[in-house]
């Protein structure tokens, strides 16, 4: 059964990679990526805008959501958790287009509006993962720490945060990957990005624009995902990897 599953997985993997390779061969032979090499300057500019929007909004969201997650998990402020999570949730439930429109209403047309919208959009995954990570620390472990005379700050810094780090990074990864896709809509508020080519392609029925815009967006999302998975691995304290393995065994 196990070897059967492995073999199936291998077959699926081979088929997938073949399909991807076939797509790229087809794409290049049909000149579908030609916008990239015909206008490299513009491509880099659009890519730069895309990346700027994602990382500026992501960075701001980390700066706000992580401290917020720490704040609501302090016993004295626990009562505020539902309120803050509900507000963050609101940002998530409103369709991305509407958030963009609202942001434009506040900041007008431009990059700032896109950054604000994606910032709002990133808060929830990072906040929730920060809370989940901090909550995953065993109550007994915290009790022992308090009983031995660690201050609240020392417990946070030496015990809670090291244990929450993986979860927080996973939250940032989720937020960024979602945002890379959503940032394609930034074009609609005049913030540029690779969405410009995608929407041009749609409007002109020109697949070369569409693919020259959409494929780099996809690759960017995959690259960011892999990068953050790698960060998760190297930043996890070794003892916690062992703990997780022990729990799974």
């Amino acid at each position, binding site marked *: 059964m196990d070897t059967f599953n492995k073999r199936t997985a291998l077959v699926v993997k081979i088929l997938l990679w073949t399909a991807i390779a076939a797509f790229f061969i087809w794409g290049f032979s049909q000149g579908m990526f030609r916008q990239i090499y015909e206008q490299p300057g513009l491509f880099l500019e659009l890519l730069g805008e895309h990346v700027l929007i994602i990382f500026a909004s992501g960075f701001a969201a980390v700066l706000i959501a992580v401290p917020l997650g720490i704040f609501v998990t302090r016993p004295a402020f626990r009562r505020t958790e539902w309120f803050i999570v509900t507000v963050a949730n609101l940002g998530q439930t409103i369709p991305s287009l509407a958030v963009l429109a609202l942001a434009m209403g506040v900041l007008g047309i431009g990059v700032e509006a896109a950054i604000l919208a994606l910032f709002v959009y990133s808060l929830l995954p990072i906040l929730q993962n920060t809370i989940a990570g901090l909550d995953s620390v065993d109550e007994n472990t915290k009790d022992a720490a308090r009983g031995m005379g660690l201050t609240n700050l020392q417990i946070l810094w030496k*015990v809670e945060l090291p244990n929450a780090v993986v979860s927080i990074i996973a939250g940032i990864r989720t937020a960024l990957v979602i945002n890379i896709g959503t940032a394609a809509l930034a074009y609609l508020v005049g913030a540029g990005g690779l969405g410009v080519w995608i929407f041009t392609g749609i409007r002109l029925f020109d697949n070369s624009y569409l693919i020259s815009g959409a494929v780099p967006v996809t690759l960017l999302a995959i690259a960011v995902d892999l990068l953050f998975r790698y960060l998760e691995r190297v930043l996890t304290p070794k003892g916690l990897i062992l703990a997780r393995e022990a729990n799974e065994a």
Partner: protein
Amino acid sequence: MIQFDNVNKVYEGDVKAINNVDLTVPDGEMVILIGPSGCGKTTLLRMVNQLETISSGSILLNGEDVTTLDKIEMRRKIGYVIQSNGLFPNMTIEQNMMIVPQLLGWDRAKKRDRFNYLMDLIGLNPDEFKKRFPHELSGGQQQRIGVARALAADPPVMLMDEPFGALDPIIRARLQEEFLQIQREVKKTILFVSHDIDEAVKMGDKIVLLRDGEVMQYDTPAEILNHPKNEFVNEFVGSDRVLKSMSLYTVKDLYKAFTLKPNFESKDIRTINEDTSLRVAISMILNQEADQLVIEDNEGNNHGSLTMDLLEQFLHKEIKGQEG
């Protein structure tokens, strides 16, 4: 010394957890808090290091009211051990154990020496375990580290909440023995929560029996077993209390209590060492391994023979004799 002076604890919602508790844990003694689940053992313990507030009355630590002390500073001078060891999974064994010395700003050499000393004390190889993580250790080893961590900064007082409660019986018995050995060496003032009367009898200099937050009896193990103050204590220690109390005495206590003639009658009679507990002696006789056993001291001298009859006499003299 820990003194409880008319201590009460009422939790939110009017749950009375501790009721007018007065008791003293003398310096260098191990006092066991025991009683049914929910009787307030953990609450009483946690009020000492201020993890719980005191509703009324006072707790004095070496004469000082704990509520007047700096919480953080005080806790660093009290060893704290809990049932689920509470080791930090992200830290190595060495980091775990040296956490309080680290907070107290000890230098590296002092910490290393202390780590090596404590590892020797709990019977684990310092170099082998130093860089390992809690999850690479067995339950018994983790709990040993938990105990050693509490001893790290050499605190005069220890609070232990069912420290061996989660271990299987064989490992638990071994850790109890080891800890008694350690206590003989370090002589800490210890408040130790247990729900196991056998553990309490084995470990305690004194035992506090609690019911619904009230002290039912505070006495030596022998007094609790031999002279239960009321029906509750009697029931709690169990109908085999006389047998349990026999584990408190050794063969040596018995031959010192009588003047026995050395027994040279037969060479093939089985011997029993003077350090054997009377409980074991009884089972040896009941198992019909022998109807008499020749008492031998550690030098191999003959101190006469031990019989069921003699055990009975001792029982009357030592245990029943004190009654009334």
